């Protein structure tokens, strides 16, 4: 029977970091969806079928398409990313937040808002 393999503690930590899927999830909305907002009526709507591009150093490293309710989930290596949409959604400033941080071993919620330019 071979001797059991004993890994150093730092190796196990790195193992955990790799196995735990870091990334982001959340919802994307278009806002405002109408020129004037009425109390009791949602002024934003889910951004369905929007392709989010996650860029590092001006290079797209991951794309993900939002689902029917504007939801998305994406695995990303730890780091800082610039987020864009693959196609123009509205006019003006586009998606916010523009920059996101992914932490090692954490899949955190980040909700995005796309400014439609409707006013």
């Amino acid at each position: 029977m071979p001797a059991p393999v004993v890994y150093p503690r730092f190796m196990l930590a790195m193992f955990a970091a790799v196995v735990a899927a870091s990334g982001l999830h959340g919802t994307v909305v278009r806002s405002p969806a109408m020129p004037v907002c009425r109390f009791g009526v949602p002024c934003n709507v889910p951004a369905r079928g929007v392709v989010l591009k996650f860029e590092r150093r001006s290079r797209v490293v991951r794309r993900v398409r939002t689902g029917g309710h504007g939801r998305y989930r994406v695995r990303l290596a730890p780091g800082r990313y610039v987020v864009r949409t693959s196609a123009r959604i509205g006019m003006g400033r586009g998606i916010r937040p523009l920059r996101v941080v992914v932490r090692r071993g954490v899949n955190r919620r980040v909700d995005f808002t796309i400014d439609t330019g409707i006013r």
Partner: protein
Amino acid sequence: MRFRKLGLLLVVLATAAVVSSVAFAGATSIAGPNEFAPSQEVNRPTPNVDTGYAAPRAIPGHTGQIKNGTPGLTGSFAGVNLMDTRSADNGNAYSIEPPDQGLCTNGTYVLEPVNDAFAIYDTSGNMVRGPKSLNSFFTNDVAITRTSSDGSPFGQFLSDPKCYWDPGNGHWYFTVLEINTDPATGAFAQPGGSAVLIAVSKGTNPRTTRSDWWFYAIDTTNNGGAAHDRSSNSAASPPAARTAYSDTGCPCFGDQPLIGADQYGFYVSTNEFPIFNNGFNGAQVYALDKDALANGIFKMQYVLHSNYDTSSGEWSPSLEGGYIYSVQPATSPTTGSWDTSNNGTEYFLSALDFDGTTDNRVAAWAMTNTSSLATATPAVHLEDYSIVDSEVYGQPPPADQKAGPTPLGDAFGAAYNNGVPYPEPTIETNDDRMNQVVYADGHLWSGVNTVMRTDNGRSTQTTRAGIAWFIVHPTWDESTFGAEMTNQGYISAKNNDNALFPSIGVNADGQGIVTFSVSGHHYYPSAAYARIDLSGVGATHIAGAGGAPADGFTGYEPYGGPPERWGDYSAAVALPDGSVWAATEWIPGTFSFATGGWFANWGTYVMHVNP
């Protein structure tokens, strides 16, 4: 053995991951600060989002700093507010944000429309007619039926009112956008339809009764803008639903209808957005026979059709490679101010910040042969635009407010935030699109919201919202149109305060005021103005000091905020007597969620100034 190989693989992967993240941590350009670089102030290429923006700096003594007193102010009063719009039609209405600001006057009456009501005042500020809802006036319905269990029947969705009094024929022109609504549910109706509604007074005195107005509609559902006569009963005859659309993403609607006029024409410009889909198609411009409208006759020429090709990612037509948006037609204070050359000329201005960053160009446009609108075969011609180098303007940040009570934020916090009050909201400054344009004294006058670096008392690193203003001189070399910048500058409230949403009213002699809202560490949202002429802008004066922070539902997280929506435009208009009437949003502080359960506390402030 298999475990040993797995361990080795993991070591390699983990090491790669660590190296990758360390290497990336050094890529400071992505998250780096938006450093100010003086060289970026002029003649630089269109920026891109990666580099951030370079904010123009407020220059002490030259940026409209706030001073005491109200020079030239001959009268002012609180105008239409949230209570008026919510209480209209016996309460069969919504709480609404933002108000948006229309204003027009003939010197005897002042007509003031907002979302979604209007009132008519005398020049002393006495409300002589109204408030009346836009729904009951334009579409002869109510927005929501509060007495029914489900709110039905719902009325048409109306928004973004503007109005204009014509110094030539004395008639009143009143516009609003309409999106077809399902009367059973209140949702936008399928398959979708929209219009710009136009009401024109039959006489020269403004009234709130429908029988005193002609009603028309420009169908904005798709390319083309077919006209409808709505004089009989518009609620019964909304635009016919179409089944095929040539413009991308349509059915669409024409957002924020902008209006202007010259001697011959009445002009409407919209931004075309899909009602149900993602997208933006650019500006659409319509020219109408002005005097015919006042006589019950609708004649229109569809002048500019913009669209976006999703397959090529290109705009048709494009403006310097970007899209055409918010093309503001000009109005003039007197009949003598109109440009009658080239068989009648109407001017427009638009901005060129396509990505919400910064830019240093303004586009001037000229539409010629406008006298043809009065003929059986209208044939106006939109000349090539002229690009004018300008000072830098850019995407403004939300505006903060002076700290104060926010009872609605407290109540929402109790309901939605585990009992923790929501923080005081910031105010939405939207973007740096072109605002109202006036053609007077041979020049085009306008301004945009912009990011500013202001003095916070310790450094010059505070980013606030300010105003970039422009005075553009249209030029003609025989039949070739051009334009040049006569003067330009900034209005910055400075010292941790913000100035937002300018409108310029200028008389025939080139004397006028800029009106706007002021908000920041030292001010609740207030109504302000500054004098302007060809030599520049004077100090800022507070005409209506705000009485509380903005505390409306759109400012809080459960309703999409912050920031809280703020009136998307203000209004200012000069009369033939040389005086200027202006109005802008403020917070009067006389009502709130605490005093009456109101879900917003906005108001408007009307001022009369001899510049």
